[in-house]
């Protein structure tokens, strides 16, 4: 970890890895979508509406995963003052926000035909909406200061305060009565015997891999862009001073 915390070394690493990550993403998405939309069976009650799940569930996983990554980076930034950690947090926030938005929109599109409503204020849906607002709040806060370092630090604190929301999202369906169903494959006991048919697992896992690689690719590109942006700021400051 410490090796790549050096921005120059990270940029060299990112330059080498980004094309490969982009190629893997570009391969996984068509395969995953083919399995999700064509080569998998309909559900016994939902019919073809079940195919929304292959986008909804991976985007929900990524919404949580990206936020968890931001929490880790926020700790590294606040405690060890790694400049790369702060820039990474700032770079991935919009990606996480978009995953959360995709999760909310696809969930709504599924809820209307299946539940009979676009939206309800149950614990799961509300806590995911709060996650979306945390992403937006972080993005607004980071850019609200003249001194970029103060913005990044305030943002990191907001990210960590918001981290209490992650277990709430995960366990909301177990702790309270919700309209949203419980998890089908999340816990380890259920991994061996998931409540989801084996025929539906390949598209779900392929789409999850595709979303993960998309995030990895975008995170590399955006973090590099943040580093470049920071260098330009430094050069401008030096020129203005000199």
């Amino acid at each position, binding site marked *: 970890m410490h090796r790549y915390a050096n921005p120059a070394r990270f940029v060299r690493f990112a330059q080498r890895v980004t094309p490969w990550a982009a190629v893997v993403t570009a391969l996984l998405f068509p395969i995953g979508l083919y399995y999700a939309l064509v080569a998998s069976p309909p559900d016994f009650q*939902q019919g073809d509406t079940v195919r929304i799940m292959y986008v909804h569930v991976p985007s929900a996983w990524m919404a949580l995963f990206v936020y968890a990554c931001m929490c880790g980076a926020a700790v590294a930034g606040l*405690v060890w003052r790694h400049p790369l950690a702060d820039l990474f947090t700032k770079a991935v926030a919009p990606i996480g926000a978009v995953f959360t938005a995709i999760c909310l929109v696809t969930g709504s599109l599924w809820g209307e035909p*299946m539940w*009979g409503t676009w939206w309800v*204020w149950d*614990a799961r849906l509300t806590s995911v909406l709060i996650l979306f607002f945390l992403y937006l709040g972080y993005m607004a806060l980071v850019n609200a200061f003249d001194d970029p370092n103060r913005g990044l630090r305030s943002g990191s604190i907001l990210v960590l305060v918001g981290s209490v929301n992650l277990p709430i999202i995960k366990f909301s369906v177990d702790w309270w009565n919700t*309209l949203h169903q419980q998890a089908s494959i999340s816990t380890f006991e259920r991994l061996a015997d998931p*409540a989801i*048919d084996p025929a*539906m697992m390949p598209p779900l896992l392929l789409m999850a891999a595709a979303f993960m690689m998309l995030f990895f690719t975008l995170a590399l590109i955006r973090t590099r862009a943040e580093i470049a942006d920071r260098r330009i700021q430094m050069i401008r400051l030096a020129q203005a001073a000199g």
Partner: protein
Amino acid sequence: MKRKQRRMMVLGLCLLGVGTATGLALTAFEENILFFYGPTDIATQGVPEDTRFRLGGLVAEDSVRRLSDGISTEFLVTDTVHDVRVVYTGILPDLFREGQGVVTHGRLDAAGLFVADEVLARHDEEYMPPEVAEALERAGHGPLTAPAAAGRDAVGYASYGVETVTN
């Protein structure tokens, strides 16, 4: 090294504080976070008359009846211990059928009849293709078959196993 450890300590304590505060708040508001109450909650705790609330549970087997006005449906919501009779006027969601989880929103009248103005179907975490559901049913795992590829128009009430009462 010392400053880093101090920062870590402060951060850890802050997170612990925020976590505890959230935990306490959620416990205090527990009743309000519940999206619905079950028939047993109503039987044991009682509900003030004319309060709007949500009632959730399973639609009891052989309980769904279409009323003679043609648009109202009556059914029992059960949690297998207690049941509540519900009457609803309007279009039912695709997944509505006997044995399915539902969440209804409305009021309890003086006679103990729950008058709902909204019925939402609850989907469980089971996902399987129709052939697997049929095979399970043949193997004696209870009636699973739903209006597969359900459509409000294509299915009609017959597939819910509903008696239609006509004038």
